[in-house]
């Protein structure tokens, strides 16, 4: 019925072979593992080359995706006129409204398992979201690897480090390009495993291996949700997908279409969405499973950088964005429902930002900052602000990666491998000017100062949250933005301003360093939470020893590293600075990929992410969604039909207004939707000023506090937490991370594990062992009886008897063996005669 309107979308080699981006790092991992140690750069070159190759393919795919989108634009008007010529009534569309065709993803899959109509493919399904994240991950991973070449030089497991980090990036790429849920689980689990390997890279220290285990197990708690959610969604969607799309319930496009079809079982949808979101809570470090992320700082800094910017933690946000229709429908996001996702996101923003204030470890400040920023992304997704949330993934990756690499640079060259801001840093801005500049740029981007990258994405989230009717959550977001400005100011001040302390002052008296840390570790765990004032002589935090990288790990043998340990703080080498500078550059300019506030002035063409990444909420004719026959996967054909969605004028209305189109009303029979019609806020000057003012207030407060407190040591402030009970309680509450770790380790694990262990031991002793013993005893008795009666008498008797019979027969026959040839001949002929007689008798009678 829509056949005439099918038009050709351009494709290309890179789009169809985007699966290479995932395959290359996996192969690179194998090559490094098997041959890495024999190569001149110990395997690092393989990692770099594979990531560069992935980046080339990903960027090629991104360019071709933009061409594909443009190819639809150019022939769009023709198609609309065809629709009108066919006289089909289009709901909710004014005459001549602009029709934005749904751009079908380019899927290339190889089916590896097939049974009773259900098939699992592996390969790539590329759309705007996928190419954006693919290129981002490959780019960030490449820069982090360049950084690592110098940073982990001479590490005892250098080759394994590169193998694992290559596979880590590969896991994320595999997940991003997934066409079905099974591949998402595959990539997800690869990341879980490799993050365990990388966090525990220096496993000789117990704190590091504990952190690795904690990360692994905490994420596993969420992973159960992924498996359960995938199963629930499969059982909900499978029959619908088979009937309507000739697909199955694991196919992501089919799941999207099912969720928006209006025929989905709301209970299955709700519980599936809840289970999947629990997986995202674990992976993306949302409250209350965020506790593993700061501990993951035990890994080498490049790992933290990659893990916190573009891989692993973004995976949860990506999963929500990928199957967004499921969450949209399950939590009624379209009609202004207060969703689980938004609540968790909002809580995470605030609690993580508060925790960042009491950290002395520079990497832990950044870690809590990441948790907080992930909260923004979740808040955006939970309130219908899909585009700003995805855009925030993009911009956040650059500046957060830059911040972590700056922290690594400081530790590498400025503070003698320490990450303790209060003990070993301070006053580094003159010694490390490049690092300082990059840090400042990234901090401004993180806090959302115009015109740095974070401004364009974070303020968009806050703006859209308010626009979609969640006023309270908007204020939470603004509050979080102010907190962000404050804790980043504190970290910047402690690291780069003030008087140099400890290692930053050239003091390397670190021989008893670990001892002190270990002692403190013990104290903290024994519950002796010391009422430490936040003074400059405060020792490190609760888990200080987890953050210290082993000194022998990367001694300064690099030529550009110089004699770090004799000369005191100095700027890092080129291999470390170049990635930082590139990332800082993007931290300034990445925001211009989608500067929504500029759209009213320069036209919508400047919103590149909106144009190319956000899927169009246009219904597609189900028949165009064809299966290519057994043995091949479902391929979305390059055909597009038009039944245009709501006109732009109807978008962006206040919540509760009449809305129609995908995500609000069920699509017409025979058509399916793949993405809900999300609304976009119109940026206004007043809102921009408000958010900038909030950030400015945050900065002003924090700078004032830092100068008074850390700089001049104002007696009214120093020791305040000791004098004021309420403040002290709050400080301890934060210092102990809301006691969540105590809750998990001492209460939940204790309560669950101990009775279970005791019961299991009792059952083991009294039931299992008794059974095993009983079985063993009776078996032995039975064996003895069998030996005595059957083996000895029957079997041996038969054997001996046959031997005896043979022996006797032999003796009886012995005389015939005379050795006389003539006698033998006589016997022979006698026998022949007898035989002849028998023959004759038989034949005659």
């Amino acid at each position, binding site marked *: 019925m829509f056949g005439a309107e099918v038009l050709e979308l351009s494709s290309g080699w890179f789009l169809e072979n985007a699966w290479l981006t995932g395959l290359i790092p996996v192969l690179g991992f194998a090559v490094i593992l098997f041959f890495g140690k024999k190569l001149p750069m110990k395997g690092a070159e393989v990692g770099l080359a594979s990531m560069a190759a992935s980046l080339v393919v990903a960027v090629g795919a991104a360019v071709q995706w933009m061409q594909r989108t443009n190819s639809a634009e150019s022939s769009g008007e023709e198609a609309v006129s065809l629709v009108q010529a066919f006289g089909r009534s289009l709901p909710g569309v004014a005459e001549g409204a602009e029709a934005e065709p749904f751009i079908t993803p380019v899927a290339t899959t190889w089916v590896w398992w097939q049974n009773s109509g259900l098939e699992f493919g592996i390969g790539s399904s590329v759309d705007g979201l996928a190419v954006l994240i693919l290129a981002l991950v490959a780019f960030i991973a490449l820069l982090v690897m360049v950084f690592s070449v110098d940073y982990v030089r001479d590490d005892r497991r250098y080759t394994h480090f590169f193998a694992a980090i290559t596979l880590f990036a590969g896991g994320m790429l595999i997940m991003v390009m997934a066409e079905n849920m099974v591949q998402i689980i595959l990539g997800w689990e690869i990341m879980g495993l490799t993050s365990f390997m990388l966090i525990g890279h220096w496993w000789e220290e117990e704190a590091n291996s504990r952190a690795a285990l904690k990360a692994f197990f905490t994420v596993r708690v969420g992973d159960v949700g992924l498996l359960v959610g995938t199963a629930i969604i499969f059982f909900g969607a499978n029959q619908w997908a088979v009937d309507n799309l000739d697909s199955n319930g694991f196919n992501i496009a089919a799941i999207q279409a099912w969720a928006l079809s209006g025929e989905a079982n709301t209970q299955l949808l709700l519980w599936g969405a809840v289970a999947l979101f629990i997986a995202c809570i674990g992976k993306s470090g949302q409250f209350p499973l965020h506790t593993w992320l700061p501990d993951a700082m035990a890994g080498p800094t490049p790992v933290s950088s990659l893990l916190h910017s573009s891989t692993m933690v973004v995976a949860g946000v990506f999963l929500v964005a990928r199957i967004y229709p499921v969450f949209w429908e399950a939590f009624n996001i379209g009609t202004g429902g207060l969703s689980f996702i938004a609540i968790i996101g909002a809580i995470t923003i605030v609690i993580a930002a508060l925790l960042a204030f009491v950290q002395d470890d520079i990497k832990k400040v950044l870690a809590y900052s990441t948790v907080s920023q992930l909260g923004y992304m979740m808040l955006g997704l939970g309130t219908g602000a899909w585009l700003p949330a995805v855009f925030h993934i993009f911009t956040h990756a650059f500046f957060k990666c830059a911040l972590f690499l700056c922290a690594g640079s400081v530790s590498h060259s400025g503070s003698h491998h320490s990450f303790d801001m209060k003990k070993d840093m301070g006053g580094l801005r003159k010694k490390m000017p490049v690092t300082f500049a990059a840090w400042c740029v990234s901090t401004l981007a993180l806090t959302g100062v115009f015109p740095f990258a974070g401004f364009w994405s974070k303020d968009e989230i806050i703006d859209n949250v308010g626009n979609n009717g969640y006023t309270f959550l908007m204020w939470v977001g603004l509050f979080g933005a102010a907190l962000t400005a404050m804790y980043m100011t504190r970290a910047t001040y402690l690291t780069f301003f003030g008087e140099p302390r400890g290692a930053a002052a050239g003091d390397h008296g670190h021989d008893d360093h670990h001892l002190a840390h270990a002692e403190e570790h013990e104290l903290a765990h024994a519950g002796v939470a010391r009422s430490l004032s936040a003074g400059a002589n405060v020792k490190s935090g609760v888990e200080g020893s987890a953050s210290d990288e082993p000194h022998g790990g990367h001694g300064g043998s690099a030529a550009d590293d110089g004699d770090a340990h004799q000369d005191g703080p100095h700027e890092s080498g080129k291999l470390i600075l170049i990635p930082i500078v590139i990332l800082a550059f993007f931290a300034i300019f990445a925001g211009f990929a989608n500067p929504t506030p500029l759209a009213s002035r320069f036209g919508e063409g400047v919103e590149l992410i909106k144009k190319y990444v956000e899927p169009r909420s246009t219904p597609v004719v189900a028949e165009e969604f064809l299966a290519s026959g057994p043995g091949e996967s479902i391929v979305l054909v390059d055909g597009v039909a038009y039944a245009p969605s709501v006109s732009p004028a109807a978008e962006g209305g206040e919540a509760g207004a009449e809305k129609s189109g995908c995500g609000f009303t069920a699509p017409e029979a025979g058509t399916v939707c793949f993405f809900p019609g999300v609304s976009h806020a119109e940026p206004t000057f007043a809102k921009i000023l408000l958010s900038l003012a909030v950030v400015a207030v945050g900065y002003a407060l924090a700078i004032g506090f830092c100068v008074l407190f850390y700089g001049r040591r104002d007696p009214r402030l120093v020791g305040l937490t000791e004098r004021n009970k309420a403040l002290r309680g709050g400080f301890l509450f934060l210092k102990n991370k809301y006691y969540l770790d105590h809750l998990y380790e001492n209460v939940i694990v204790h309560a669950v594990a101990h009775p279970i262990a005791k019961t299991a031991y009792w059952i083991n002793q009294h039931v299992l062992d008794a059974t095993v013993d009983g079985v063993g005893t009776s078996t032995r008795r039975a064996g003895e009886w069998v030996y005595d009666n059957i083996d000895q008498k029957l079997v041996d008797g038969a054997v001996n008897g046959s031997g005896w019979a043979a022996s006797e027969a032999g003796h009886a026959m*012995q005389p*015939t*063996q*005379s*050795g*006389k*040839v*003539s006698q033998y*001949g*006589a016997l022979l*002929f006698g026998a022949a005669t007898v035989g002849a007689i028998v023959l004759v008798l038989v034949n005659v009678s």
Partner: protein
Amino acid sequence: MLAVNFLLLGAALFAIGVYGVIARRNAVMVLMSIELILNAVSLNLVAFSLMTGAVDGQVFALYVIAIAAAEVGVGLAMVLMIYRNRKTIALDELSEMKG
């Protein structure tokens, strides 16, 4: 009945051969007796061929002659070796194979 005569001659030769194998002590004589038996068999085969009109029996007779030549060659070689070792070819003195 020409064929019956041949068969009777064959049987007579066979019986003489059997007597020779069993009764003679000299190994060469035993071998000669075996030749008699084989010739009797050949004669029988040709006679049967004559009776049935098929050529198969005559072909078999040719094979038997060839085998007889080989057997006599091997047999005489063994006799020669026995003579070299024992300076006698009397079979009743050879009882190495007594069980």
